[in-house]
């Protein structure tokens, strides 16, 4: 078959909701798009552990501590499922990690913001994991099999993350005045970065059309952002704190909330590396990688020695 026929067959499969598996023929752009998207997703899970890890030792109770530990451990797992999915596209794990460490690969810009108070852990679970779920649920039907399957596992686990976050917010909002203020402050700082997690407006998102045609994406950035605002606004009302957007109001005719435009200059600035914690996050990753190198080496040496001596026993 020539390339045109292969491409036609490929698109036919996608149109008929037949998943693409690792050994199937795929256009090079499809492969490259997936490698970029899945590895960035993996990096986001891994870097995302850092802002929350910051509060594990200072969680206010044992109950909160075990929950946060379990959540952060889940995020490590999510990173691993996704690195595995990336590898099925023919790229080595080491190469993927090197791209993160060298700054070549990106991760979600949300993790370049600091976690200043305990309420931030509540706001992250509620809003950041909430936005992640909104993005990830449609990815369970992504045309690429290994990515879709990884997303099914991830989505099953995310729901506890969001609920534990909202529970933290609820406890603070039903607590003292100072606690409620802390929750409001966290919402003020996390709201806009959370909206930016869905990516630029559709008009500034040149790859959306191709990704939708390939069924990597099922909804546009703006559609998902709207859904998120519609679902989250009543949850803020229930907490009794207010979303920091003067333009936010229910639109009876549309059946949706109207809301303001995120500050996109800030979004692009953080992506360019100028967010409050970009350098800190990347340095933490590099430090962990470099300081762990002797462990990786030693484990390999040990495995080699063990298999040598097992072979000797078998020979004898």
């Amino acid at each position, binding site marked *: 078959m020539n390339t045109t026929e292969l491409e036609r067959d490929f698109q036919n499969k996608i149109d008929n909701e037949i998943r693409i*598996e690792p*050994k*199937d*023929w795929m256009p090079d752009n499809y492969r490259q798009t997936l490698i970029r998207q899945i590895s960035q997703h993996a990096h986001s899970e891994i870097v995302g552990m850092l802002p929350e890890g910051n509060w594990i030792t200072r969680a206010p109770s044992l109950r909160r501590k075990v929950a946060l530990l*379990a959540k952060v*451990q*889940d995020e490590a*797992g999510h990173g*691993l*499922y996704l690195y*595995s999915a990336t*590898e099925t596209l023919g790229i*080595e*794990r*080491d190469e993927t990690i090197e791209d993160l460490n060298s700054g070549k690969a990106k991760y979600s810009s949300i993790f370049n913001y600091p976690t200043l108070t305990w309420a931030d852990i509540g706001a992250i679970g509620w809003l950041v994991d909430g936005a992640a779920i909104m993005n990830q649920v449609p990815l369970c039907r992504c045309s690429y099999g290994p990515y879709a*399957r*990884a997303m099914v*596992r991830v989505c*099953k*686990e995310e729901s506890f993350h969001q609920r534990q976050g909202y529970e933290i917010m609820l406890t603070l909002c039903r607590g003292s005045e100072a606690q409620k203020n802390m929750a409001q402050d966290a919402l003020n700082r996390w709201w806009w970065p959370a909206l930016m997690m869905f990516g630029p407006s559709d008009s500034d998102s040149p790859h959306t059309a191709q990704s939708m045609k390939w069924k990597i994406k099922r909804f546009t950035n703006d559609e998902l952002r709207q859904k998120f605002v519609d679902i989250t606004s009543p949850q803020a009302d229930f907490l009794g704190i207010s979303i920091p957007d003067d333009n936010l109001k229910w639109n009876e005719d549309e059946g949706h909330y109207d809301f303001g435009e995120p500050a996109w200059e800030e979004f692009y600035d953080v992506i360019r590396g100028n967010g409050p914690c970009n350098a800190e996050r990347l340095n933490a990753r590099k430090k962990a990688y470099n300081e762990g*190198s002797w462990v*990786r*080496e030693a*484990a*390999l040496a*040990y*495995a080699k020695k*063990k*298999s040598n001596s097992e072979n000797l026993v078998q020979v004898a």
Partner: protein
Amino acid sequence: MSKRSWPLWEVFIRSKNGLHHKHVGSLHATDSQMALENARDVYTRRNEGISIWVVESKSITASDPAQGEELFEPAADKIYRHPTFYKLPDEVKHI
């Protein structure tokens, strides 16, 4: 510093007795013991399994999707292998 990466392993989990082990994903480990331990941490954090198999990925031989037709097409027209091929009167019960 040498850049030798750990081998890749495929992980299979039996969720409960009576069911097959099912492929769940892959991971890197230096040997089978470490692969088992990592599989436990990565793939069974919520009682997903009671038994784990790990197989080094390079030991798996897979069929080629490009040969899909010659491998699997011959079964498609053998409808006489299915019970519905045989038409029996409605009066005949339990068959």
